[in-house]
């Protein structure tokens, strides 16, 4: 059976009423899970895994996968409306999504996120159908040196996240890297900057940082001003304007490719492609200074990248049996519970399951789009809740979100600490994105570099002698050079750097 016929066979299985119903239930549950703080996609799929025990394998995996990408969209809703990421992958969307909401363009931000997620998800699924095996084989050539260099490309993009001052952006990035150093040393297992506190042994999680810096920081700033202001959105302004649509086309395209490529590499995590796609858009934009003020490109690219990543992350699972992230590992356990071993033989031995699930990605993404576009007015109507009530509810849910990550009140206190830091960052005009980016990249980079140096017995040349690694480092050098070129031009024009 060729690929096309296999896919059609998958559609025939997926479109059976029961499977279709499970895809819809999964999308709905995923969206709700994404909206609620503290219940991320990993926790959501793990929580609902026992419910699938009695279900047929195809139906259970279809539902769990739908929860996964449904949660990715759900997280966007709170990021845009109240500046609190429902799940970590939507943290970067806060930067421009919330600013769009403040300008009365919340509907447009949610619409472009839904469309971008649909396109990103479907293109990645197409990649899964057509190019799965060769791409995965290539991705597996990524050893620690290549992985380090790839992360270094991400780090080099931190400089392009600067707004008015390059110095402040670099300080923000270094602070993020220092925060990433907290916890057990990845190679020697020595506690580092924990000051004898056991809660710090696991390091500082991204949830207290993102929720504190974006959510609590913004609430402190708003409460300090006036709490009686409403974010007004008219019904006729809910949809994307033609200009916004045009401006989103290329960011969606680039976000798709970045998310897809990163999804192939196990261990990258969904946060990295979202931040990198945002940084790439800012770098390529004719108006990088406007990012963070409500640019639709700043929503379109990362939202597309996260769904493309989610769908592409299934490729290493299906072709090699390698789970690339925590959620995929949970889905892998769903396969194994049903007596299916993910890997190259899965396509041959259980084509009904594999092709049924692959076809369900198309259906699921379509369901998500159809379900969420009409619901945008409903989501936006939450902004009409009087501010004291809305802010109090947000703060209450943030307490739950901060606590439930590790069941630790230490994290709750930490969230307030980062909230105050976020408030100071806003007051002093320090960009937050470089810090969040480096907090994510820091541990990945350090581990990869130290593993590389163990491979070469301390010889740094391993990073430059392997072709993929050297190519990526050259790309990073190009990014840094172009940022400094932009900075020097700004100095000549006597603008503040």
């Amino acid at each position, binding site marked *: 059976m060729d690929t096309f016929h296999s896919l059609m066979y998958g559609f025939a299985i997926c479109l059976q009423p029961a499977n279709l119903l499970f895809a819809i239930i999964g999308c709905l549950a995923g969206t709700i899970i994404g909206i609620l703080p503290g219940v991320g996609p990993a926790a959501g799929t793990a929580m609902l895994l026992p419910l699938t025990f009695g279900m047929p394998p195809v139906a259970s995996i279809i539902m769990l996968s739908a929860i996964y990408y449904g949660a990715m969209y759900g997280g966007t809703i709170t990021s845009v409306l109240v500046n609190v990421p429902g799940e970590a992958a939507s943290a970067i969307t806060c930067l421009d999504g919330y600013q769009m909401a403040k300008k009365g363009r919340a509907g447009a931000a949610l619409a472009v996120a839904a469309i971008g997620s649909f396109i990103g998800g479907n293109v990645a699924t197409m990649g899964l159908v057509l190019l799965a095996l060769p791409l995965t084989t290539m991705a597996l050539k990524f050893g620690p040196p290549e992985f380090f260099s790839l992360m270094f490309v991400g780090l080099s993009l931190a400089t392009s996240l600067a707004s008015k001052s390059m110095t402040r952006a670099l300080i923000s990035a*270094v602070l993020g890297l220092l925060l990433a150093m907290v916890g057990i040393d990845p*190679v020697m297992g020595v506690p580092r900057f924990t000051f004898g506190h056991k809660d710090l042994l696991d390091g500082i999680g991204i949830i207290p940082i993102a929720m504190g810096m974006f959510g609590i920081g913004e609430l402190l700033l708003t409460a300090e001003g006036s*709490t009686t202001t409403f974010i007004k959105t008219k019904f006729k302004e809910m949809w994307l304007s033609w200009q916004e649509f045009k401006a989103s086309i290329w960011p969606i395209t680039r976000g798709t490719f970045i998310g897809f490529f990163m999804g192939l590499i196990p261990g990258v995590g969904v946060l990295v492609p979202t931040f990198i796609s945002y940084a790439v858009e800012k770098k390529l934009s004719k108006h990088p200074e406007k990012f963070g003020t409500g640019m639709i490109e700043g929503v379109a690219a990362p939202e597309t990248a996260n769904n493309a990543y989610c769908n592409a992350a299934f490729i290493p699972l299906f072709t090699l049996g390698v789970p690339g992230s925590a959620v995929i590992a949970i889905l892998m356990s769903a396969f194994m519970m049903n007596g299916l071993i993910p890997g190259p033989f899965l396509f041959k031995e259980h084509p009904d399951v594999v092709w049924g699930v692959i076809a369900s990605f198309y259906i699921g993404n379509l369901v998500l789009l159809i379900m969420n576009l009409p619901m945008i007015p409903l989501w936006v109507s939450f902004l009409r809740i009087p501010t004291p009530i809305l802010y109090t509810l947000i703060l209450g849910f943030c307490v739950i979100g901060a606590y439930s990550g590790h069941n630790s009140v230490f994290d709750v206190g930490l969230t307030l600490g980062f*909230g105050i830091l976020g408030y100071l960052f806003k007051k002093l005009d320090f960009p937050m994105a470089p810090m969040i980016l480096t907090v994510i990249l820091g541990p990945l980079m350090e581990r990869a570099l130290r593993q590389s140096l163990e491979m070469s017995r301390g010889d740094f040349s391993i990073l430059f002698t392997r072709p993929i690694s050297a190519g990526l480092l050259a790309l990073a050098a190009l990014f840094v050079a172009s940022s400094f070129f932009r900075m020097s031009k700004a100095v000549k024009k006597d603008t503040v750097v």
Partner: protein
Amino acid sequence: MTTMTRPYQVTAAVLFVFSAFVAYESLQLKFYTRLGPGPGLFPFWLALILGALSVSMFFQATFRSAEPRPADFYASKLGYLRALAICGAWMWATVLLEPLGYRLTMLVFFPILLLTLGRVSWYTNVLFTLIGSIAAYWLFTEVLRVTLPIGPFDALFEPIDKFFESIVSIFAR
């Protein structure tokens, strides 16, 4: 015209002290091992970079034409009080969430915020306090299976739990 010179000078000084502290702490860790960098190498270099950047920030703030200070840089007394109320309520939750349990802690957390963040009628206050504490607890623990702290006085809420359970059983039928 007031400028951002002084706030940036103070920030740079604080960052410099922080970088010196991190550098000192890093030196207490192994710097290099037989297999390559030790746990102290990266933080030490990062501390040096942060120190250099803070010095650069200080000089930029002092000798370059400074940015104007935004009009709302300092808030009104009432504004600061509202921000402090948020911090106070959050600290209350941090300290008492485990000793008192989620529901009892939030029965105080919500009214404090609702009263300080704006004008809300007493019945709205009661309604949202109940939603944020008791209903949210039930939703997260019973429906979503998220663990939230239980306190020594949680037996007081047993009739409410039974009420929710009876509603669910009616729907389940």
